[in-house]
């Protein structure tokens, strides 16, 4: 089984590479570095929320976090307000952001566990509340991040964007946790069949709680970095990450039925989602064409991935 096309994650990378090549075809190769750099920068935010969403989706059917955009906005808003553009407060801001994420994750899980709400509805409803909190906390005013933090978020190290390093590091951690750790096995077991996992001695509620907290903390981190990167938090800053977080997970080859995750696919899909829009924009496609083609490509990737999977079985 060394056929690389048998891996479900390969397709998102193939698609990303194609989009990259097609874009550069327009300029006969000029700007490759720039484009790759931009893809890594912006892909990082999608990858970070995507990794969190992936863990949740792995928990099985019906598990998804729709509060990611609101959590990003809320934590970024609170963090930037706490920092108030003062130098040397970056760490304080990070703590505030992650704290907000932790709170949101716990609240989401409390709704799911205590009130037995389906996660889709619970996180959707909770996200409206978080949005209100964000509005209330500073009425949508954009506060600039401290300069040092902004420099870090937009800076690079060894030629790669710093945010991409953060995203890569998280991906590696998540990969190790899923592939090698006890908790990862527990998560995968819970995702296949919660009742079975419980009867096999898996602490399923601990797994679920920690997963919902993790996704919210990842969203908070992503929000914090995004706000630092783009010069401040805005009330609508997370909006596009709702569909994005789900899309990168499923395009990346994670099973929507639960119990099977795919870390490399998330990064591939995150790069793809950025590159495909860049490609279509570069070719001058209008919003209509862009949407139709994006949709068609997503479906094509899913079909390709599933056909190969069946061929192997």
């Amino acid at each position, binding site marked *: 089984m060394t056929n690389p096309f048998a891996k479900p994650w390969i397709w998102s990378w193939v698609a990303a590479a194609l989009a990259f090549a097609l874009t550069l075809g327009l300029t006969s190769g000029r700007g490759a570095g720039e484009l790759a750099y931009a893809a890594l920068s912006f892909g990082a935010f999608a990858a970070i929320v995507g990794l969190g969403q992936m863990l949740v989706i792995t928990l099985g059917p019906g598990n998804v976090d729709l509060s990611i955009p609101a959590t990003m906005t809320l934590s970024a808003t609170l963090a930037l307000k706490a920092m108030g553009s003062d130098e040397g407060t970056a760490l304080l801001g990070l703590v505030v952001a992650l704290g907000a994420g932790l709170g949101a994750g716990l609240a989401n899980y409390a709704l799911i566990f205590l009130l037995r709400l389906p996660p889709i509805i619970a996180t959707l409803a909770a996200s409206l509340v978080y949005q209100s909190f964000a509005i209330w906390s500073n009425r949508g005013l954009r506060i600039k991040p401290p300069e040092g933090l902004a420099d870090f978020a937009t800076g690079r190290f060894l030629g790669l964007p710093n945010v991409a390093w953060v995203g890569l590091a998280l991906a590696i951690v998540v990969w*190790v946790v899923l592939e*090698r*750790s*006890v*908790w990862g*096995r*527990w998560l*995968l*077991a819970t995702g*296949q*069949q919660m*009742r*079975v*996992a*419980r*009867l*096999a*001695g*898996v*602490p*399923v*509620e*601990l797994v679920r709680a920690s997963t919902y907290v993790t996704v919210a903390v990842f969203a908070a981190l992503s929000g914090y970095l995004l706000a630092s990167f783009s010069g401040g938090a805005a009330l609508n800053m997370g909006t596009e990450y709702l569909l994005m977080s789900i899309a990168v997970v499923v395009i990346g080859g994670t*099973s929507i039925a639960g*119990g*099977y995750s795919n870390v490399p696919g998330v990064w591939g899909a995150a790069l793809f989602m950025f590159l495909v829009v860049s490609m279509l924009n570069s070719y001058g496609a209008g919003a209509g064409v862009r949407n139709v083609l994006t949709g068609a490509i997503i479906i094509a990737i899913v079909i390709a991935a599933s056909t190969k999977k069946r061929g192997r079985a």
Partner: protein
Amino acid sequence: MTDHESAPIVALTEAAKHFGPVRALDGVSLSVAPGDCIGLVGHNGAGKSTLVNLVNGGLAPSSGEIRFDTGGTALGAGVRSVFQELSLCPNLTVAENLRISHSALKGPGWRRPARAEIRQSLDTVFPDHGIDPDAEVDTLSIAERQMVEIAIGFAPRGTEARLVILDEPTSSLDAGIAEQLLAHVRRFCAGGGAVIFISHMLGEIFDVATRIVVLKDGKVVAERPADGFTRQGLVDAMGHVTAEEGETSETARSFGAEIVRSPEGLSAREGEVVGLSGLAGHGQAAALARLYLSRTSSWHARKAPEVVFVAGDRTRDGILPLWSILRNVSISILQQGARWGLVDRAAEEATAAEWKKRIGIRTDDVTNPILSLSGGNQQKVLFARALASSAPVIIMDDPMRGVDVGTKQDVYAMIRAEAARGRTFLWYSTETEEVCQCDRVFVFRNHEISAELTGADITEERILEASFEMQEAS
């Protein structure tokens, strides 16, 4: 007796089915004529379910031929199947489930005849079943579901049933209900119907079968009229080296301190094998599940668990379907040997390899997917999962469902050996024979313990008595 002169309903010639390298069925010839009741036996993974699926058209043969007397499909020939895995739609009512397999029920007002038909069929096969045709299936107990499935199998459904295939139909039925089914099968065959009856309970086979077919590793190794076999002969034909019998009359063992006591009165001591009995669906499984859930937490897991669970309803309670055999075995013992939260993969592999050997899981590689195993071998994986842990208490919820005779003997021996080393077993079984091997038995009736039997009191009569008492009184 069988009328071999009449044309067979279905005839297989050299039928074979391969799953990749696995030869699940390896050239089987068999014909079933009206009035036949064929008892199909064989070890776990012998190919029985595969044979059934070829006959009913669920699988296409890799080679060979399957011919029906009507010349058409299995459905057209009046072939009905009751599958090893429950296969009703749990969200529909009993009557609606009949509708699924009875496409002639059409038009407005189909519900009334559907209700009448399924009630009629249930009444015929299982008198006093007490099942409401308007009940949703997922509100029924597993035994009731099995009864409904059997009743649907025998229901007229427009065309009469001519050949009914029953794949381990009694595995979740208690003795009384199973006896009703056997009686019905005999009536059905006497009336000119044909049945293929698969079971690991040889008593049942001898009870109903007119002819017995023994499968071994995908081949028919013996086929004779039922009276041509003795029990031992049958076991030998199946080719399993059975453990020595006769350990039943062992001297009274001494037990340790009490280690389990539940609010409803279940108790067990160290080293004791405690049986739970009574009619199916009277709260035994629920009591065990409650006990397990109260002794474990969904919030934290201990390195060495206090109790482990062996599920009988595999798909609902036991199998992690996406995983390999290896990961299915190791899930309960991951924390042993884990460092910094990381799984010790070498130890994990060693454990799986050891248990594959000890309990005889029929596979060439433990990294194969669990779903490539036959039903009984999946069950062995669940045993391995529990026994591999160091838990002092093992809870078993009718764990022998679908396990073949030979393996059962091995597992009994293993249970006794573990008990001798001080582990405690709480064992619910629908087979009185198994319960009778226990050191102490609790009989359940209406979700309460109606009797606690020990020592010489543990007899089939006493258990039956305690199971029914209330019903006679009322």
